[in-house]
C-alpha cells in the first residue's frame, strides 16, 4: 500500500502549497471531486476481493478525511491571510476630517427667555405678549404716569406720528402695557409673565434703542410683598444657579407700584471680575412692588378687594450677568463668530427638572 501513503502525502502537500482560496478549491476538486483522484481510486476498488475492498475502502476514506481536514485548516489560514491583506489595503488616513453636519445656535435672548418660562412656569405663571406700537393710555396713563409726570421723561419714549384724533402712539417703553391689557381683559386671579421687545431713545455702550424686558404680574385677593420676595428669591437662585444667592430689597419709587422695591443680588468685584453670589457687594437687577391702587382702578379692578405684585427686569442684562457676555450692543449685531460663541444648541431646551 505504499502508493496509498504516497497519494496521501502528495495530496496533503498540494493542499499545503495552495497559495490562495481559488487554488485550494482547485486542489479540493482534484482530490475529492467526482472526478478527483481519490474518487477515481475508489472506483477501482470494485475489482478487488470483498476483504481487500473493505480494507482499501477504509484506507481511502481515511485519506479522504485527512485531505478534507487539511483543506479546512488551509482554508481558514488562507481566509485569515486574505482578510489581513484586504484590511491592509483598505487602510485610510483617519486624521482626515469627518463628514460635516451643521447645526445653528439659538440666540442668548431666546435661551434666557426659555429659562424664564421654565422657572416661572413651574410657579404657575403663564406667558402673555402684546403689541409693540402702543397708545398713550396703556403705556403711561393707566400706569399712573400722567402726561406731565417727571417720571415720563425718564423713559426716553419713541413716538409715532400723531393721528387724526390728536393721539400719538408710542413704541412701548416697557412690557407693562401687556399687564394693563391682561388686567382689563382677563378674569382674576392673574399670574403672568410678559416678555418682549421694548424701545427707548437711548443709544450708548450700556443702552440700546431696542431691548427685551420681562415683567411679572400677580393679582388676587391676598398676594403680598412677602410672596413677591419669595418668588424673586426663588427665581434669582434658580436662574443664576447659586443656591445661597443673597438678595436685598430696597425701597424705591415707580409710579405704578406702592410700596416699591428695587432688588439687588450679592456679588463680588474682586480683581475687576464680576462674580454673582457671595462677596460683599450688591448689584441691582430688577424693580418691583405692590401694584398701585390707581393702576388697579384704571384697569377696572376693585382695589379694595384685589391686590398683587409686579416686577420687571431686562432680559439682556440678566443674560449678560449669567453668561458673562460683556457688551450689550453685540446682542443685535449678528456677528457669526459671536452667535457661534455665545449661542446655545437647540437641544438645550431649558427645564427645571432637567436642570437649567
Amino acid at each position, binding site marked *: 500500500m505504499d502508493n496509498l501513503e504516497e497519494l496521501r502525502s502528495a495530496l496533503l502537500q498540494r493542499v499545503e502549497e495552495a497559495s490562495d482560496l481559488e487554488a485550494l478549491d482547485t486542489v479540493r476538486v482534484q482530490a475529492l471531486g467526482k472526478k478527483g483522484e481519490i474518487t477515481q481510486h475508489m472506483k477501482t476498488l470494485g475489482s478487488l476481493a470483498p476483504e481487500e475492498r473493505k480494507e482499501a475502502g477504509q484506507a481511502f476514506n481515511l485519506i479522504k478525511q485527512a485531505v478534507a481536514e487539511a483543506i479546512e485548516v488551509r482554508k481558514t489560514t488562507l481566509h485569515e491571510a486574505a482578510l489581513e491583506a484586504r484590511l491592509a489595503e483598505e487602510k485610510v488616513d483617519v486624521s482626515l476630517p469627518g463628514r460635516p453636519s451643521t447645526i*445653528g445656535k439659538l440666540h442668548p435672548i431666546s435661551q434666557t427667555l426659555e429659562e424664564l418660562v421654565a422657572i416661572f412656569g413651574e*410657579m404657575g405663571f403663564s406667558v402673555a405678549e402684546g403689541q409693540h406700537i402702543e397708545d398713550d393710555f396703556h403705556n403711561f396713563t393707566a400706569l399712573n404716569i400722567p402726561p406731565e409726570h417727571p417720571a415720563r421723561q425718564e423713559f426716553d419714549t419713541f413716538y409715532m406720528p400723531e393721528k387724526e384724533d390728536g393721539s400719538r402712539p408710542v413704541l412701548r417703553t416697557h412690557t407693562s402695557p401687556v399687564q394693563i391689557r391682561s388686567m382689563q381683559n382677563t378674569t382674576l386671579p392673574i399670574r403672568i409673565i410678559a416678555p418682549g421687545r421694548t424701545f427707548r431713545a437711548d443709544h450708548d455702550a450700556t443702552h440700546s434703542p431696542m431691548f427685551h424686558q420681562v415683567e411679572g404680574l400677580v393679582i388676587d385677593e391676598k398676594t403680598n410683598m412677602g410672596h413677591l420676595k419669595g418668588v424673586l428669591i426663588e427665581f434669582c437662585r434658580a436662574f443664576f444657579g447659586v443656591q445661597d444667592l443673597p438678595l436685598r430689597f430696597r425701597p424705591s419709587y415707580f409710579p405704578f407700584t406702592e410700596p416699591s422695591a428695587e432688588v439687588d443680588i450679592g456679588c463680588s468685584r474682586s480683581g475687576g471680575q464680576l462674580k454673582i453670589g457671595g462677596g460683599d457687594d450688591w448689584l441691582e437687577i430688577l424693580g418691583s412692588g405692590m401694584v398701585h391702587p390707581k393702576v388697579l382702578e384704571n384697569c377696572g379692578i376693585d382695589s379694595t378687594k384685589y391686590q398683587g405684585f409686579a416686577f420687571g427686569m431686562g432680559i439682556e442684562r440678566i443674560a449678560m450677568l449669567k453668561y458673562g457676555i460683556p457688551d450689550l450692543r453685540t446682542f443685535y449685531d449678528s456677528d457669526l463668530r459671536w452667535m457661534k460663541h455665545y449661542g446655545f444648541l437647540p437641544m438645550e431646551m431649558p427645564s427645571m427638572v432637567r436642570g437649567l
Partner: protein
Amino acid sequence: MKFTLNWLKDHLDTDASLEAIVEKLSLIGLEVEGVENKADELKAFKTAKVIEAVQHPNADRLRVCQVQSDEGISQVVCGAPNARTGMIGVFAPVGSYVPGIDLTLKAGNLRGEDSNGMLVSEREMGLSDEHDGIIDLPEGTEVGVLIAEVLGLDDPIIEIAITPNRGDCLGVRGVARDLAAAGMGTLKPLKVEKIEGSFDSSINWKADAAVADDVPYVAGRYFRNLKNGPSPKWLQERLLAIGLRPISTLVDITNYVSFDLGRPLHVFDADKISGNLTMRYAKEGEEFLALDEETYKLSDTMVVIGDDNGAQGLGGVMGGLETGCSDDTTNMFLEVALFDPISVAMTGRKSGILSDARYRFERTVDSQSADWGVDVATQMVLDLCGGEVSNITSAGAIPIEKRTIDLRPSRIEDLCGVAVSKEKQIEILSILGFEVSEKGDLISAVVPSWRPDVELEACLVEEILRIYGYENIPEIQMAPASYLPQGVLTLVQRRVSNARTALCWRGLDEAVTFSFVSAAQADLFGSVPDSLRVANPISTDLDTMRPSILPTLVAAAARNTDRGYADNALFEVGPQYKDDTAKGQQQMATGLRSGNIAERHWESASRVVDVFDAKGDALAALSAAGAPVENLQVFTSAPPYFHPGRSGVLGLGPKNVLAAFGELHPRVLEAMDIKGPVVAFEVFLDNIPQPKVKKGESGKIKPALELSPFQSVDRDFAFLVDDSVEAGKLVRAVKGADKSLITDVVLFDIYKGKGVEDGQKSLAITVTLQPRDKTLTDEEIEAVSQKVIAQAMKATGGTLRR
C-alpha cells in the same frame, strides 16, 4: 444729591458711624451711589517745615531741603521753584503712595544727594491740576498735621440717588429726617427766627392774575448796604465738596440753602432792577439772556420775572445775567417763590435749561418753605454780608390745603406680609413729620407740606415699611395653583419656539435685530405707511418700523461678509409691521443664506446656495410650527424683492399664503451692498391654521397605523415634457392616478441634453405601489402603470420616454 457727613450732622444728632449711615440710607430708599473720603486717600500726607533749602551742588534746578516732620528731619531733593527755607509744605515720606503720579516713594539719590521723601504739589496729591510749585501753607501752620484736616478735606462726601417722588430729600435736612425716623439719631430743630425789616422795600412783587396757578406765591426782601465778595472758608469748602464752584457770598448762600434745605432762592442786584418785579407769562418770542450767558427765545406758556426792561428771570429755572449779583453788589433783592412743578417742567424741557432750581421745583418744593425760606435767607445774608433788611413784600398766597389720610394698621400686614405694631407705625409717621392721631381703629395722618407725593393709604404703608425695613418682610412661598405645573405656553407660543429650534437644527444661527430700519432699506422690502415712521428716531438709520425682517438680516450678512465670513445662514423669529395696529404686527420666521452651503471639505464638493435651500428651510419651519405641509401648493407669486424666476410662495391656496422663498432680487442686493446670490424665506407664523380639537379631548391622539403585510413595489418612469412644464404638476397628476395603490411619487432625475430634443426635458419618477389585501400580479402592476402613464401624459402633454 451730594452732601458731607458733617453737613448731615448739622441736622442730625447722631453717634452712628459713616458705614452705618451709608448702609441705612440705601435701605430706606435713598440709594447710595458713592462715598468719597479724601482723608483716606491723603492719610500719608502731613504738614512739615522746610528748615533749610540750599542749592543742589550738582544741579541748577534742584534744591536740597531739610524737612522737619512729626517723625524727625529728612533730607529731600526738590525741583519746585518755590521751595525755600522756613516754608510750611506737605511732606510724603518714603513708603507713601502719591496718587497724582501713581508712585510709591522709595529712598533715592539725585545727582549725589540723598532724597528721602517728597514735598508735594496739589496735582501730585490728586487734588487739582495745580503744579506751579509745591504746596505753600500759611505761616504758623502746625507741623505734623494731616493735610486733609488742614485743607478741610476730612469730611466724607456721600452721594445718593433721589427718586422723582422725593423732592424733600433734595435738601440735606430731608435726608436727616429720614435717617432720624430710621433710628439713626434725632433731627435737630431748624433755627428760624423772624427778623423784622427796618424799612419798606422800594421794589415790590406783583403777579399777573393769569399766572396764579403756576406761581401761587412769591415773597421778597430788599437788602441794602451789604458787602458781597468771597464767601467764608467753611461755606466754600462745603460747596466744593459737592461739586459746586463758589462764586460770591450772595450766590453761594442761594446754592447753600438750595442744597441744605431744598429751598431754591434767587438774588437780584437791586440797583440793576428797573421798577417793580412782576410774575407774568412771557410774550411769544420774547428774548431772555440767562445767567449761563445764553439767549433764549421764550414762549407764552413760560413764567418770567419781569421788570420795566423785560424778562430778568425764567420762573423756577434760571435767573437773568443782566440783574445778577456781582462782587460789587451792595443792594440786593431776594426772591423766594413757589412754582408749579408741571409749569417748571414744561419750561425746562422747552428751553433745555438744566439747573438745580428746575430740578427741585419739578419735583415739588415744600410749600411752607416760601415762608421760612425768607427768614433763613435773611439770617444768612445779614450774618455774612451785613447791611439792613426791608419788610417783606409778597404776591399771592401760600396754599394751606392739608391732606389727611386714614390708615388701617392691619394694612401693613395685608400688603407686605409683616406685622408692625400700631405704636411703631405711629412713631415712624410722627418722626417723618406726619401729624398723627388715632380715630377708632384707624390712624389718621396729616401729610406734611414737604411730602405731596403721599397721596393714599398705600403711600403710608410704604412710608412705614421702608423705615421699618424691607429686610423684615418674610419670604413667603406662593401657593401653587395646582399640584403639578401646568402647560403655560399657548399653542402659538409653542409653535414659534418649535420653528426656532427647527431652523437651528437646519444649520441656521438665530439673530435678534432691531425692529426699525432706515426708510431706504424699508422701501426695498415693501411700501411702508406713514404711521410706521418713527417721529423722533435716534438716527435716520432707525426711523422706520420694518415691513420685513429681511433688511436687517441682509445687512447682518453684508457685515459678516465684510468681516470675511461670506457663508451666512441666519434667521430671526420676530415681528414685522404692516401697520400700527396689534394685528399689523406679524410674527415671522425669516431667514437667509449666502455664500456656500457648507464649508469646503476634502471629500464632498461645496456649492453655492440656491432657492431650494430656502424652500427647504421654509418647509422645515412650517412643519415644526404645525403647518399641514402635505397640503401646501407652490405658486410663483413671491413678493417683488425676490428674483422673479427663482422664487415662490407656499400656501393652502393662492390667497392663503404661509411662506415665501427664493433668491433675493439682484437689485435689492445691489442696494444693500452684498454680493449674491442670497436666498431667503419668510414664514408667516400667524397664518398657520390651528388644529381643531374637540372639547374634552387632548388632541394628542394619532390616527391608527396601517401596516400592509404585502410587499410594496417600486416602478420607475421617465417622461419627456415641454421645458416649461412644472415638475410638481407631473408628481401631483401621478399621485392621483390610483389613490388606493400609489403611496408615494418621488422625482429623482431631471435630464436635458443628448437624446432629448431641444425645448424638452426628461423627468424621471419612482412610483411606490402598496397593495393592502394581496400581492400584486404582473397584470395588475401593468394596469396601474398604464394609468400612471395616461395621467402623466394628460396633465403634462408629454410622452413616456422609452
